């Protein structure tokens, strides 16, 4: 049995035919989709902006041609891979991104987020539905805002003391302070470090 030696050349795509990829007015490939009629003006508007932008970028891309006659300057090569593991001097020039964790969470293993309910701590800037950042590794010292298990319920209070007695204070005149007495069911759960409040 012999196999056909010639390739079937009929039909199929012809190489080099059709528009070039990215040759549309937007500078990239395009695709047809169905959209609700009511949105057509809005979308057209949006696409027009895109078109202008892509033209601008293309224009600007064309303006920055390298100057072939520029004097040559020798630059030290900052390679990120230094065998001994020293930080590369180039790293100083890299803009780092800001990570909120760095600001809000000192000790991930001991940090918990909880959600506030009620208005007794408004004076401390804690509103209903705010998220509190709680660090259990911190020592609860007088003046700190703490989470405590009070009669079996997780509660937010300001830790105060008066003449050797611990007082759990509210930050709202409508709520009285609680003096902690022997035999009271109260355990300190953690120290609040930040409030995350949406506006």
């Amino acid at each position, binding site marked *: 049995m012999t196999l056909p030696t010639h390739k079937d050349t009929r039909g199929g795509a012809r190489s080099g035919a059709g528009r070039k990829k990215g040759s549309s007015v937007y500078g990239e490939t395009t695709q047809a989709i169905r959209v609700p009629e009511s949105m057509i003006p809005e979308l057209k508007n949006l696409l027009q902006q895109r078109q202008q932008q892509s033209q601008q970028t293309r224009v600007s891309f064309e303006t920055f041609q390298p100057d072939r006659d520029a004097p040559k300057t020798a630059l030290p090569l900052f390679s990120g891979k230094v065998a001994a*593991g020293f930080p590369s001097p180039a790293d100083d020039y890299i803009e780092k991104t800001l990570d909120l964790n760095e600001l809000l969470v000192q*000790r*991930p*293993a*001991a940090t*918990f*987020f*909880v*959600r*506030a*309910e*009620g*208005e*007794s*701590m*408004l004076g401390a800037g*804690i509103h*209903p539905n705010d*998220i*509190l950042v709680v660090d*259990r*590794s911190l020592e609860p010292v007088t003046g700190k805002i703490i*989470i405590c*298990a009070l009669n*079996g*319920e*997780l*509660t*937010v209070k300001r830790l105060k003391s008066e003449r050797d007695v611990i007082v759990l204070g*509210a930050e709202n005149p409508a*709520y009285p302070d609680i003096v902690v007495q022997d035999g009271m069911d109260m*355990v300190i*759960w953690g120290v609040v470090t930040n409030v995350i409040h949406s506006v």
Partner: protein
Amino acid sequence: MPAQPRIALVDCNNFYVSCERVFRPDLSIKPVAVLSNNDGCIVARSPEVKALGIKMGTPVYQISRLIKQHHITLFSSNYTLYADMSARVMTLLENFSPTLEVYSIDESFLDLTGICDKDPLAYGQNIRRTIAQNTGIPVCVGMGPTKTLAKLANYAAKKWPKTAGVVDLADAERRAKLMRQVPVKEIWGIGARLAQRLNTLNILTAWDLANQPVDRIQAQFNIVLARTVMELNGIACLMMDEVVADKQQIVCSRSFKRRLTEEDELAEALAEFCSRAAEKLRNQHSVTGAISVFIRTNPHNAQEPYYQRSASMILPQATQDTRLLVRAAKQLLKSLFKTGYRYQKCGVQLSDIRPATQPGQDDLFLYDDQNHTNNAAVLMDTVDQINRRFHKAITVAATGLGQRWQVSINNKSSRYTTEWSELAKVKCC
């Protein structure tokens, strides 16, 4: 003169119950139990529940009367929460030793050789204080010259409140005294059946076993038990393993000699861990319902930024399939990985491990009725065959079985630490 080796086993008390209690202080001294998948059996008990004589693994329907009578709060297992709390505990433990081996979701071996020779008990108390304050989870610490003795010390620390949760067995006399009081079945790696065999040979306590000639034990039993005898005598035979498994979790992790910086490198390592963990699953005829992945940089190098993260996933269907586990692990890694760090260690932890044949079905075969047992064997065999051919069909068919027993279950607790919408609520009142 090299330092006397000291291994510590740090173990969380009633871990799943303790996790639930961190966010439910109202239950801190109330009877609480956690149930297996499908809410079939008890998998964790608070001390109050243990005091009622309720055994580990008891099916719920058998104790529905006790549950009502003593107002026992029941939780479905919340592996997302447990895995996150476990990662926190293990991260904190790394500050106490350069060498840590996670043995299961709630226990770790630490090499403390030469670290706390002056006052090991104070060091152990410091570990307990730190974990309790930072996470709210109570732990016990057992120390000894070998892993088996560390396990034994931990058993003593849990059993006798007088120890205040820390026991050190560096002293041979102290070991002898303890071993005389501990039944042989409590030794690490000795199951009920082996304990029975030993008892018939008049080996009743740990002390009896420790005094057997090693070669005779090896001839009569096997090398594993011979090693246990040596370990009880302070001769270390069990090195820090890479893959460890017990009935409830399988952990597989490793530190790398070379620091890894690329996601692909970590993904490769995790894939290898997954395939070894899946092999373990298949060997013990189990499936897993939850997988966690952790990655971290070197915690002992102050010159480098420290980064440690873990994440877990409840699998849509319990599995022992390597490919599914690898896919899940890679998905988790994607959410954890950050460039710019030099990773020193990563690992995989499988939890929610159950028999490959559903426990719900096992219950149906456990009638102490002669007529049933023969049928049961045939039935089990059929189930196994179906399982081999259409694995998923059976698991799907079985999921409803756990719902038969009309016990009110305080359903799954919130994923307090991993979902913004499920955070613990705190009152401002």
